[in-house]
C-alpha cells in the first residue's frame, strides 16, 4: 500500500503538467537547492572555526559549545518561521482515496510520514551534526554526542510537526498569527533591553542536553506528541469541502473599479485585470512584491559613498518605477490562460485587450513614480533620474516586455499557491529582465563617459518620450503580433 502511495506521489510530480514543460527550471532549482545544502554543510563543518572567531571577538573565555548554543534558540526560531512560510502539507493529495476501501488513518499516517522527507529537515542536521562529531564528541564524550544528536533531531522534528499543526490551527483561529507576532515582538523587546537573555537560556538548555543526555529525549517526545496531535486533527478534518473552503477562506469580493468604466471597454478590461490580480494569491503577491521593491532604492541611496555608485541609480530608477510591469508583465498572457478562449471568442477587440494591459502598466508606473518622489530626501537628482527612468519605461520597456512575453507563453493555474511556483516560466521570462535593465544604458553611457552625465539622463528620458509619442503605432504592432500568434498561444494554454 505504502508502495502504491509512494509511486503515486512520484508519478504526480513526474507527470504534473508543469514538470515536463519547465524541466530546465526544475533542474536549475534542483542545482540551486543542492548548492545551498552544500553551503550549509560546509558551514557546519567549519562551525567550530566560526565559534573560535566569535570567541576571540566577543565572548572571551567561553567554550565553543557555549558559543554555538547561544545561537541555537534563534536558529530554531528562524527555521520555524521559514517553515511557516514555505512548507506545506499536501492535504489535497488524499482526496481521490477517501471513497476507496482504505482506512483514513493509513492515508494520514502516510501523508505525515512522507512530509518528513523534506529539505527543511536536513538543514539543522547538516549544520549541527558535524559540530557534534568534531567538537561535542571530542570534548565531552560519546554520551554528550548522543544527547546533542538526539536534541537536534528532536527539535527539528518538533519544529516540523509544530509548524504543520500551527498552520492547520491558523485556519481555524487566524488570531494565532497575531499572537505569534506578538510573542516574537515581545521577545525582541525583552532581549533588546536586556531584561532577559534568550541566548543564556539557550546555552543552559543545551548544556543540560549534553550533561544529562536523557533530557534530550524531551524534544523527541514532544515531537511524537505533536505528530499525534496532527494525526488526530487531520483524521477529524478530512472532509474535502472543509479542506478546500479553508484554503480560500476569504471570499472577499474586492472592489469593482467602477471608475474605470468611464474609459470604455479598455477600462472594463483593466478592471477585469485588477480583479484577477486581487482575487488570486500569485498575482497579488507580485503586486505586493512590486510595492516592496519601491524600497529597493534605499539599498543604493543610503550607501555612504554613493558618489561612485551614481551610474547604478538609473538601474534603481527603472526597478523602482517598473517593478510591477517587469514582474506582472512577463506573464502578460499567461494570467489569462484559464479563460483565454473566452477572450478570443467574445466581442473584445484584440486592440483593446492589448491597450488595457498597456495603460494598466503605464498607470502603475506613474503611481510608483509619484510614490518614489519621497526619495527627494536623498537629493533632487534622484527624482530627476527616476523621472527619466519612468519615461523610458513607459515609452520603451513596457512595449518591449509585452512583446517578449508573447513569445511562447506558458499556462498559469491561478488557483495554485505562490511560493516556489514557477509555473509560466519560460525562456523569455528568464531573459526578460536583461534588456529592460540594460537598454537605458545604451543611451546613458555614451554621454556619461564623455563627462555629460545629466545629458545622459535626459537622453534616457527623451527616448522614452519619443517611444510614447509613437505609442499608437507601437500598440498596433503589438496587437498585430498578438493576432498572428493567438492560435498558437491558445493551443499552448489548452494543452495541459
Amino acid at each position, binding site marked *: *500500500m505504502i508502495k502504491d502511495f509512494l509511486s*503515486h506521489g512520484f508519478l504526480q510530480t513526474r507527470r504534473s503538467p508543469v514538470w515536463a514543460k519547465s524541466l530546465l527550471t526544475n533542474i536549475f532549482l534542483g542545482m540551486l537547492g543542492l548548492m545551498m545544502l552544500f553551503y550549509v554543510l560546509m558551514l557546519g563543518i567549519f562551525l567550530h572555526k566560526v565559534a573560535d572567531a566569535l570567541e576571540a571577538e566577543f565572548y572571551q573565555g567561553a567554550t565553543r559549545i557555549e558559543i554555538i548554543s547561544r545561537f541555537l534558540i534563534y536558529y530554531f526560531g528562524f527555521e520555524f518561521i521559514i517553515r511557516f512560510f514555505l512548507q506545506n502539507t499536501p492535504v489535497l493529495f488524499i482526496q481521490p482515496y477517501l*471513497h476507496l476501501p482504505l*482506512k483514513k488513518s493509513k492515508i494520514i499516517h502516510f501523508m505525515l510520514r512522507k512530509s518528513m522527507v523534506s529539505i527543511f529537515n536536513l538543514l539543522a542536521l547538516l549544520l549541527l551534526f558535524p559540530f557534534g562529531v568534531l567538537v561535542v564528541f571530542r570534548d565531552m564524550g560519546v554520551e554528550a554526542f548522543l544527547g546533542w544528536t538526539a536534541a537536534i533531531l528532536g527539535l527539528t522534528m518538533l519544529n516540523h510537526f509544530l509548524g504543520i499543526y500551527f498552520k492547520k490551527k491558523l485556519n481555524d483561529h487566524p488570531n494565532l498569527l497575531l499572537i505569534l507576532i506578538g510573542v516574537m515582538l515581545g521577545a525582541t523587546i525583552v532581549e533588546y533591553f536586556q531584561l532577559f537573555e534568550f541566548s543564556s537560556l539557550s546555552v543552559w538548555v543545551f548544556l543540560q542536553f549534553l550533561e544529562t543526555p536523557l533530557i534530550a529525549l524531551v524534544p523527541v517526545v514532544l515531537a511524537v506528541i505533536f505528530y499525534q496531535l496532527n494525526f488526530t486533527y487531520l483524521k477529524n478534518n478530512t*472532509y474535502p469541502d472543509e479542506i478546500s473552503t479553508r484554503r480560500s477562506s476569504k471570499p472577499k469580493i474586492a472592489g469593482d473599479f467602477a471608475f474605470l468604466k468611464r474609459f470604455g471597454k479598455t477600462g472594463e478590461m483593466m478592471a477585469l485585470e485588477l480583479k484577477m490580480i486581487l482575487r488570486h494569491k500569485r498575482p497579488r503577491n507580485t503586486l505586493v512584491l512590486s510595492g516592496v521593491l519601491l524600497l529597493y532604492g534605499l539599498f543604493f541611496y543610503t550607501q555612504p559613498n554613493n558618489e561612485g555608485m551614481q551610474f547604478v541609480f538609473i538601474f534603481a530608477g527603472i526597478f523602482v518605477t517598473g517593478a510591477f510591469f517587469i514582474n506582472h508583465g512577463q506573464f502578460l498572457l499567461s494570467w489569462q490562460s484559464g479563460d483565454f478562449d473566452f477572450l478570443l471568442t467574445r466581442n473584445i477587440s484584440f486592440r483593446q485587450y492589448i491597450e488595457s494591459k498597456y495603460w494598466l502598466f503605464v498607470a502603475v508606473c506613474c503611481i510608483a513614480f509619484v510614490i518614489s518622489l519621497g526619495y527627494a530626501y536623498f537629493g533632487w537628482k534622484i527624482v530627476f533620474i527616476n523621472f527619466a527612468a519612468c519615461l523610458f519605461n513607459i515609452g520603451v520597456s513596457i512595449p518591449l516586455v509585452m512583446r517578449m512575453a508573447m513569445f511562447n507563453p506558458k499556462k498559469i493555474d491561478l488557483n495554485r499557491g505562490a511560493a516556489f511556483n514557477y509555473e509560466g516560466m519560460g525562456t523569455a521570462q528568464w531573459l526578460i529582465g536583461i534588456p529592460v535593465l540594460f537598454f537605458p544604458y545604451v543611451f546613458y553611457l555614451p554621454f556619461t563617459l564623455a563627462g555629460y552625465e545629466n545629458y545622459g539622463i535626459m537622453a534616457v528620458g527623451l527616448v522614452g518620450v519619443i517611444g510614447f509619442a509613437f505609442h499608437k503605432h507601437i500598440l498596433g504592432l503589438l496587437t498585430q503580433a498578438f493576432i498572428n500568434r493567438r492560435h498558437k498561444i491558445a493551443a499552448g494554454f489548452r494543452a495541459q
Partner: protein
Amino acid sequence: MISVQGLSKKYKGVEVVNIPELNIEKGESFGLVGNNGAGKTTFFRMILDLIRPSQGAVLSKEVAVNTTEDWKFYTGSFLDESFLIDYLTPEEYFDFLASLHNYSKGDLREFLSQFDDLFNGEILGRDKYIRDLSKGNQKKVGIVSALMGDPEILILDEPFANLDPTTQIRLKGLLRDLKENKQLTMLISSHDLNHVTEVCERIVVLEKGVIQEDIQTSESTLKDLEEYFTL
C-alpha cells in the same frame, strides 16, 4: 441498507439539505431527481462521509458512516472527477484499485473484459492519462471503478451526463442487469427524467434540500415528473 435520520447540512445559515427520515432497502434502485442546487450531490457526499452533516447522520447497515469505515468495503461510488487519480493512466488506476480489492491480474482482466462494449476501445491501451481523457471517458473509468470489488451499494451522480447515446443505452442495460442479477442497491441522481425512470424503481424528488415526492415508478411516473417540473 441505508437510512437517514434527521439529516441537515447548512452552509452559512442556509440549509441545503434537510431530510428528516429516509430508508433505502437492500436491492432497491433509488433515483434522485431535482433541479440544479437541489442538494442531490451534497446528500450523496454525506452518504459517502465526504461532507460532515450539520445535524443527524447517515447509517449504512445500521452504522453511522462517520463512525466507522466499514461501509467503504461494500460501497462503490463515483460522483465527480476528483474521485479519480487523474495523473494515472486508466490501466494504472484500475491496477491500483485491483490491489485494494485483492484482485489478481487474471481477476482484473476478467473484470475489465465485461466492459469492453462500454469502453468502446477508447479507454484501455491508449497511453493517455485520465486527465487527458474526455469528460465522457473519464466518467466511464469512474463508473467501472465504482463497480470493482462487487459492491453491495452503488452511488452514482449524474451517470448519464456527458455520455454518448450508445453508451447511455449500454449503461442503462448494465445497471438493470446488476439490479436483477446481483441485488445491488443503487443510488442514482440525474437530471434526465427519461433515464432515471427507466432504471430506478423508486424516485425521490428533491427541491431546495427537502424531499417533495417519493414515488414508486409506474407507467405514469415519467408524465407525473414532467408535470412536476413544468413551471
